[in-house]
């Protein structure tokens, strides 16, 4: 159903299963249609999904569709990326980052 190496879509409905119960760390991208920097990050996150396939899953959550999850993790600004490990939210960042910077951040956080 979901391919390795591609960002997957998560929502309030499947967050528990796809993110909290994931054995692999999951980088959750909180985004919305009005957010231009989020749009600019989308291809960067697809590239990261590919580069880190196997050791990291990238998941995208639309905060307009899934306000419950956004609220649960105190996401009140986007873009926000939160790295989940073993069901727990860990490192997070709330600003646009170009690919090199994001990968440096990830390497330190993973």
């Amino acid at each position: 159903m979901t391919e390795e190496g591609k960002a997957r879509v998560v929502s309030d409905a499947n967050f528990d299963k796809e993110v909290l119960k994931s054995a692999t760390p999951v980088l959750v991208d909180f985004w919305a249609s009005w957010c231009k920097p989020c749009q600019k990050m989308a291809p960067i996150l697809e590239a990261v999904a590919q580069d880190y396939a196997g050791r990291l899953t990238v998941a995208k959550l639309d905060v307009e569709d899934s306000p419950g999850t956004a609220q649960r993790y105190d996401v009140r600004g986007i873009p926000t990326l939160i790295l989940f490990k073993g069901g727990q939210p860990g490192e997070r960042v709330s600003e646009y980052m170009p690919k090199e910077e994001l990968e440096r951040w990830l390497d330190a956080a993973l």
Partner: protein
Amino acid sequence: MSPADSPAASTAAWDLLVVGAGPAGLAATIYAARAGLRTSILERGAPGGQMATADWVENYPGFPEGVAGVELGLKMEEQARRFGVTFLTADVGATGLQLAGPDKTVAGQRARAVVVATGSRPRRLGLPGEDRLAGRGVSYCAICDGAFFRGKRVAVIGGGDSAVTEAAFLAKLAAKVFVVHRRDGFRAAPTLVERVRALENVELRLGRVPVSIEGSGGVEALVLREAAGGEAGAREERLELDGVFIYVGTDPETGFLKGKVDLDRAGYVITDQEMRTSVPRVYAAGDVRVKGLRQVVTAVADGAVAAMTAEKDLAALAQG
């Protein structure tokens, strides 16, 4: 993108490379491209600069009803692309920068002339809780994050046009907006101030200084104290809220230029009237340079001047 020292890269790819796709940079590319210069523009994020974070621009000439900041940015970008400007995604800070000499290198791109138009970034207050709660209720962009505060309580800190304009914007979404400013009067244009004073869900807290932002998972409160009378014994007030929007000015994006071009003490690029910096064929335009008025309208003017000065200087070089 060949390395600057590659034997194959003997001719610079660009006549003019512009760094930063805000209004100054975009205007520079429009003028440069129309003057026949091979022109490219580097941008780390999305084009538009701070126009993209301004809800509504009312004072840019030509728009009697005003224009959405995002739209103004998109139009400028479209215009630049129409004239054949090449847009490149790059972060100048991260890679080698070489500005001296006949060919300049910026983010792996070689050009005969460079316009620095990197603008500025929102200034932080440096309050306890401010960094920890960034994205969790602390924001520097109302149009970006306002949607999270529908029906909630927020504060806007600042006294200039941006603070007052964005407070009015937030008042349409939030249940309550507190406007906090250390002075007793606003710096903002009187018409903007009148408009925000009249809003029934806006409460002013003038003569107040923010002390800290509180909250565990997200913002829960903003602590203020009276500005007058110093810290000891000043009355504190704790406002319970869900968001704090900070609009207290901007700082120039010139960290990457330290030691490369002359900057003033605050970090702004020093230029002459024609936008020339201390390095030949390196120019600066827009908020990033030392200037009196930082607005979209002055940024585009700088961009146009910088491009035409570059064209003149490159032509003079060709004549030897």
